[in-house]
């Protein structure tokens, strides 16, 4: 079975007619015909390298770059953030990498190629490229405890299998022609799977933009030419519910990156007359399970995914994963294979849907010139949309502004500490360890002294 699957080829896109709309935005529709020509033409002009950082901000441009790279057998690198030092470090580990951009913004130290859309419709008829399922087409990065981004290779078989299984679970059929609007970045693993791979495997249309404000989401969904699907996060969904935006009923909402509270899902289902489904996944394995949030806590593994629990850990198995992958959260698996998620492993934090290890952040802090000691801390959730990290730093002679400025080049903005507090020392114990309770106490004292602003 495995051998048979590994030998297969799957077309670059599925279930479209040539004049179907593959993407749209305020500049109009992009048909399948136009997309294939754009991708073929860009593929011809790409440099002869083996890896590419696709930094395109427009989802259609990203897809054209991704497809062109696949045609040229180049792996697309998906950095967790655009912080310049992260990009440089990844480009350093995959030597010979270049960057694909669509706004002409160059990254110092990395060769950049601007995505030119020169699709000439006269190229038609052309064949839809068929890609072997065992070819590595993308590399997603996760944070480890070493302070170095860890690469996770994704084969074409893995990406297409997840897209097919997700579509099947959501009841999406070829010919449904949903219009997909996504608030998540396409360089994020869930974004790539749900806002790029899911649409192109099922013949759906995607909006090329990435709405931020509820009013943007409202106008994009209202413009959709067919039944809409919103690929989003609890954060954006909360904003839409809080603004009570009015959109055509009967759509489909898919949320991931952080657990969606059931009452929020309930409000969204009632207000938008739309089903709200959630995906559970992580960059190392991709999407692995789904649930309709109002139905309960249990996650149903996607077709082909098996979650096994032994005494010390939980592992995900699927034919497209070369080895079983440990689940980064604490979960309990039932005899029927469904599971419940209890929370993150101790070192992992999730800020606005982005996961990172505190160990990784602490390592970065300690690398800053003049920093003698330092620790990140995530306070208990408050009333705001997002609870931010705090950091306590021992750096005589340095100001918190100076440290923040350096840190900004290394971490995604969502992980920037608020505040970064300079202290004379950290409450390390006799063995040099810094127990979480001590940091928690330090944070409590600081908040009590400074007030929390609100």
């Amino acid at each position, binding site marked *: 079975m495995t051998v048979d699957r590994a030998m297969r080829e799957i077309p670059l896109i599925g279930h479209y007619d040539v004049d179907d709309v593959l993407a749209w935005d305020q500049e109009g529709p992009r048909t399948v015909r136009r997309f294939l020509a754009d991708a073929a033409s860009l593929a011809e002009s790409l440099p002869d390298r083996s890896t590419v950082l696709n930094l395109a901000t427009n989802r259609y441009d990203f897809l054209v770059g991704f497809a062109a790279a696949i045609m040229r057998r180049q792996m697309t690198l998906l950095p967790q953030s655009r912080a310049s030092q992260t990009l440089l470090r990844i480009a350093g580990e995959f030597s010979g990498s270049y960057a694909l951009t669509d706004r002409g913004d160059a990254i110092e130290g990395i060769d950049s190629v601007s995505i030119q859309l020169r699709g000439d419709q006269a190229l038609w008829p052309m064949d839809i490229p068929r890609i072997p399922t065992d070819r590595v087409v993308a590399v997603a990065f996760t944070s480890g405890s070493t302070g170095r981004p860890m690469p996770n290779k994704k084969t074409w078989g893995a990406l297409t299998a997840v897209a097919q299984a997700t579509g099947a679970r959501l009841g999406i059929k070829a010919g449904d022609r949903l219009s997909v609007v996504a608030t998540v970045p396409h360089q994020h693993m869930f974004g790539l799977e749900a806002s790029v791979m899911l649409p192109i495997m099922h013949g759906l249309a995607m909006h090329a933009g990435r709405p931020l*404000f509820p009013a943007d989401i409202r106008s994009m969904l209202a413009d959709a030419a067919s039944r809409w699907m919103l690929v989003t996060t609890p954060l*954006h969904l909360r904003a839409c519910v809080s603004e009570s935006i009015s959109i055509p009923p009967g759509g489909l909402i898919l949320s991931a990156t952080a657990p969606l509270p059931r009452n929020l899902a309930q409000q969204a289902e009632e207000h938008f007359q739309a089903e709200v489904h959630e995906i559970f996944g992580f960059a190392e394995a991709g999407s692995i399970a789904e649930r309709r949030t109002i139905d309960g806590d249990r996650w149903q593994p996607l077709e082909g995914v098996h979650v096994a629990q032994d005494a010390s850990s939980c592992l995900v198995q699927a034919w497209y994963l070369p080895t079983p992958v440990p689940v980064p959260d604490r979960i309990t698996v039932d005899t029927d294979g469904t599971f419940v998620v209890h929370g993150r492993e101790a070192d992992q934090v999730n800020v*606005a849907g982005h996961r990172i290890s505190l160990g990784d952040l602490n390592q970065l802090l300690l690398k800053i010139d003049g920093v003698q000691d330092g620790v990140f801390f995530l306070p208990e959730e408050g009333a705001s949309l*997002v609870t931010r990290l705090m950091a306590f730093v021992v750096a005589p002679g340095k100001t918190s502004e100076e440290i923040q400025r350096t840190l900004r080049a290394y971490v995604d*903005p969502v992980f*920037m500490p*608020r505040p970064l507090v300079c202290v004379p020392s950290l409450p390390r114990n006799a063995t040099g360890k810094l127990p979480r309770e001590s940091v928690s106490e330090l944070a409590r004292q600081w908040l009590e002294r400074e007030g929390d602003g609100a």
Partner: protein
Amino acid sequence: MEQSGASLLERDLAKLIVQTLKLKIDPAAIEPEAALFGEGLGLDSIDALELSLAISQTYGYQLKSSDPQIKTIFSSLRALAEAIEKNRTK
């Protein structure tokens, strides 16, 4: 520290920003012409979203990033206050 020539709306808005985003600064220390995002106050897109909800609730103005002026609107306290003045419904 007193803001140089800050209008009443600018002062109210500075308070709303500090309160909404839990910034550890004196609202009066936000210079009307200084950058709010990136290097300035170091705000990011989640702050923009959070701020947009507060502005909508307080002034009845729904921000849109498809607005061609959006970069200008978010460039400073003064620009944001001007946009609110023009579009507010309460």
